[in-house]
């Protein structure tokens, strides 16, 4: 249909771009719901796994094992049909974002669990020795150190969630990939449509990682000068 693309390329590019960019807000929205939700849930499970005692520990381990053992897209469909079903009836955006958050919580749990272990039992002992309760010790001594340690691996998970937010396209949420696919289908320009989508994803992931690197650098504890 486009015999001579040159005269029409630039207006088309900008049309494509502005159409796909509208999905960017939704992609960012999905990520901004899924990541913090997954962080809260993951943190809770990591604490339960580390400090919860025998049975809660086992339950948290099973939670992690099951969620990490199934492809995210499969889980997404299962969770989606629960969250947008008869009992709980959420919009595709919310059902998709929360489902993605649940999937991510298992990975974030493992990141935080490793960080809690890396802080070590000594810090807990020292905190208890000055009369802190377990909860106080976790809040004021262990977590501030564990969260610092968790930033670099968490940055990795953040970029995975950002990219996996494209999976909610399968639920009909009009984010970047969904819009790119629509364009590709209507204009027969798959390379251009998906290329622009890829570019936007890349910029988003790059910016996220840079921001978290900066955070990691800012919160680093000083050592010998």
């Amino acid at each position, binding site marked *: 249909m486009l015999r001579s693309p040159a005269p029409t390329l630039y207006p088309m590019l900008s049309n494509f771009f502005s159409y796909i960019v509208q999905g960017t807000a939704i992609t960012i929205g999905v990520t901004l719901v899924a990541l913090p939700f997954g962080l809260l849930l993951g943190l809770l499970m990591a604490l339960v796994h580390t400090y919860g005692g025998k049975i809660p520990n086992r339950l948290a381990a099973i939670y992690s094992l099951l969620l990490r053992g199934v492809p995210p897209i499969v889980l997404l469909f299962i969770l989606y049909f629960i969250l947008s079903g008869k009992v709980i009836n959420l919009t595709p955006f919310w059902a998709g974002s929360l489902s993605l958050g649940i999937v991510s919580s298992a990975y974030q749990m493992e990141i935080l669990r490793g960080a809690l272990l890396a802080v070590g039992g000594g*810090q807990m002992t020292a905190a*208890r*020795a*000055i*009369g*802190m309760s377990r909860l106080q010790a976790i809040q004021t001594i262990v977590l501030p150190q564990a969260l610092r340690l968790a930033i670099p691996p968490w940055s990795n998970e953040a970029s995975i969630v950002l990219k996996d937010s494209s999976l909610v396209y399968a639920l009909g949420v009009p984010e970047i990939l969904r819009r790119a696919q629509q364009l590709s289908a209507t204009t027969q320009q798959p390379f251009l449509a998906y290329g622009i989508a890829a570019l936007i994803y890349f910029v988003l992931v790059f910016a996220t990682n840079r921001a978290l690197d900066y955070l990691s650098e800012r919160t680093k*504890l000083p*050592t010998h000068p």
Partner: protein
Amino acid sequence: MTNPILETRNLTKIYGQNVIFKDINLKVNEGETIVIIGPSGTGKSTLLRCINLLTSNDGGQVFLDDKEITAKGHNADEVRQQIGMVFQNFLLFNHLTALDNVMIGLTKVKKMPKDKAKEKAMEELNRVGLADRADHYPGQLSGGQQQRVAIARALAMDPRVMLFDEPTSALDPELIGEVLGVMAKLAKDRMTMLVVTHEMGFAREVADRIVFMEKGSIVEEGSPDDLFYHPKHDRTREFLWKITELYGKKEKEKGAVE
């Protein structure tokens, strides 16, 4: 004679089949410095942990100011506020400055207002000679300085008793003196102290009483002179002889602890 400030009666700790220590009877009077010596693995450190309830015991009792702190339902967090502990590997809170390390127990546990806590924390840092390092993080301090901050952190809680678990074992020989110096000063100020250490110079110069422990029980206890010059048991003599020979040279160089 007044009652002891801290007392253990038949205190026993068992891990599975392993008896760590058994029937330990120890009395610590107000203002006294007691040094516990003995070979590694005789349960000295575990004894200290049992006394401030960081580890549960398997028999016997611990009394602090005539109250049984090992009794069921006794608030362990409150007990630990009154018993200061200094660890072999310092265990400063790595994300906090020296000042905040000393302050955090005051603000979070004792709920002291910030300005008052800061004042008190600075006093304690001054006491260990580190007021000028208040804003340094543990990573910026030497081992000796870290241990002195750890002592200040414990002192800030105004404990009835201070427990020291091999406070100088992880230090470079050059840094041991500054920590022992702080401890000797505390002893002189009549702080009640229970010290597990291999520093025989310190034991001889500072201790009011030395307790020799081996294989989970107290072999002998008495004044430094009694243990060093007139030990009742051969095993005490043998241990002291070996360890003084090992550390003797170093102590001579240091000129011991005043």
